[in-house]
């Protein structure tokens, strides 16, 4: 790792001041992606502002039609939380499928979203559940937040504080893991908001998470699920675009069997 200055603020307010110290300063929470990137010298922050321990970022609570989860909440906490399980079961199912136990003990919701890995799990839930991403500056709708490969609409130094998930009637997440890394070769999150209203978000197959609107329309009309066009999908040594497209449909069909219909 290149040298850097480590800072440990005791509040969000202090963290917001520290991030202004240098344009190359970065927040660190769990560090599950940032630290490996720094070890490979792919990232070279001047300062690391450690927000991983701030209690202000750790809430899990219900607010009217929303389940609100603090950005610093660990994957393990989401996987085990009884309020998450009872209000958005799919979110707890998703969290237990991230990485491995050691990663789930450190990695955070906010970190996963800010990184926006095209094979990450949380973006699928955020998009399917019409979530709002609340930062220190504004509230961002999920549909505006994700902007393709490792890209979000966050400004430099903007801090995600919490995510407000709109509670669905029911939800589930199904994932095909890349055997070595545990990342999604394909992952499908389904959230149901009305008798014929389903949101379907897909991760792992393209340049970033997306809503599969053709499948949503088919489900609303009780028609057969269409084939996902594979022309624009990710192709790598792990899987072809055609295979990813096929498995996405298989995963959606499996997800629907896990919902009460």
């Amino acid at each position, binding site marked *: 790792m290149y040298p850097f200055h480590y800072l440990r603020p005791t509040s969000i307010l202090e963290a917001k001041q520290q991030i202004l110290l240098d344009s190359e300063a970065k927040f660190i929470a769990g*560090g599950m992606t940032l*630290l490996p990137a720094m070890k490979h010298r792919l990232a070279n922050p001047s300062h690391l502002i*450690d927000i991983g321990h701030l209690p202000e970022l750790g809430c899990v609570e219900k607010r009217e039609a929303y389940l609100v989860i603090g950005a610093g909440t660990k994957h393990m906490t989401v996987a085990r939380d009884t309020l998450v399980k009872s209000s958005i079961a799919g979110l707890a199912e998703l969290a237990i499928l991230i990485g491995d136990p050691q990663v789930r003990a450190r990695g955070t919701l906010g970190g996963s979203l800010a990184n926006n890995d095209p094979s990450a799990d949380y973006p699928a839930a955020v998009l399917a559940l019409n979530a709002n991403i609340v930062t220190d500056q504004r509230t961002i709708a999920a549909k505006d937040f994700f902007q393709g490969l490792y890209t979000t609409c966050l400004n430099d130094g903007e801090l995600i504080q919490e995510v407000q998930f709109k509670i669905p009637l029911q939800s589930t997440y199904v994932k095909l893991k890349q055997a070595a890394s545990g990342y999604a070769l394909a992952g499908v999150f389904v959230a149901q908001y009305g008798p014929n209203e389903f949101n379907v978000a897909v991760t792992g197959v393209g340049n970033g998470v997306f809503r599969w609107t053709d499948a949503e329309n088919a489900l609303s009309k009780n028609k057969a699920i269409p084939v996902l066009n594979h022309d624009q999908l990710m192709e790598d040594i792990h899987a072809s675009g055609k295979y990813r497209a096929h498995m996405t449909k298989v995963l959606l069909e499996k997800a629907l069997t896990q919902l009460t219909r």
Partner: protein
Amino acid sequence: MKITINGTVQDIAVNDNTLLVDVLRDQLHLTGTHVGCDTSQCGCCTVQMNGSTIKSCTILALQAQDAQITTIEGLANQGLHPVQEAFSQEHGLQCGFCTPGMIMSTVQLLKDFPNPTDDQIMAGLAGNLCRCTGYVNIIAAVKSAAKKMQGQ
């Protein structure tokens, strides 16, 4: 910074970019915690921090300040821990390099699932790689440890 390792408070000086595993091995000479891949894949560096297993190669020492850390050395206070005994008896290792991490993860897994199924064992050890055994004896060792710890 202050950090509690195996019940003893340590007051140590570290660089901002020092990893926890390097504090354990190089400064405190607790070399039971291994560095396998150094890329958070293999789990050989697994320790417990405040009651959860973590990979000590992927956390800065300063991130762990004020935390309670247990390493493999901290398990064997009064004779071997039942999980260590079980790995020995069931031959849940060959070269032994991954074993400290496997044992730390097994201790956590048996806290969560005192009587685990094969699937729960595989999920609980998903962050630990062994390149020798093929895992059969490791799973047998976990089950044997579960029985020991339930007094059967």
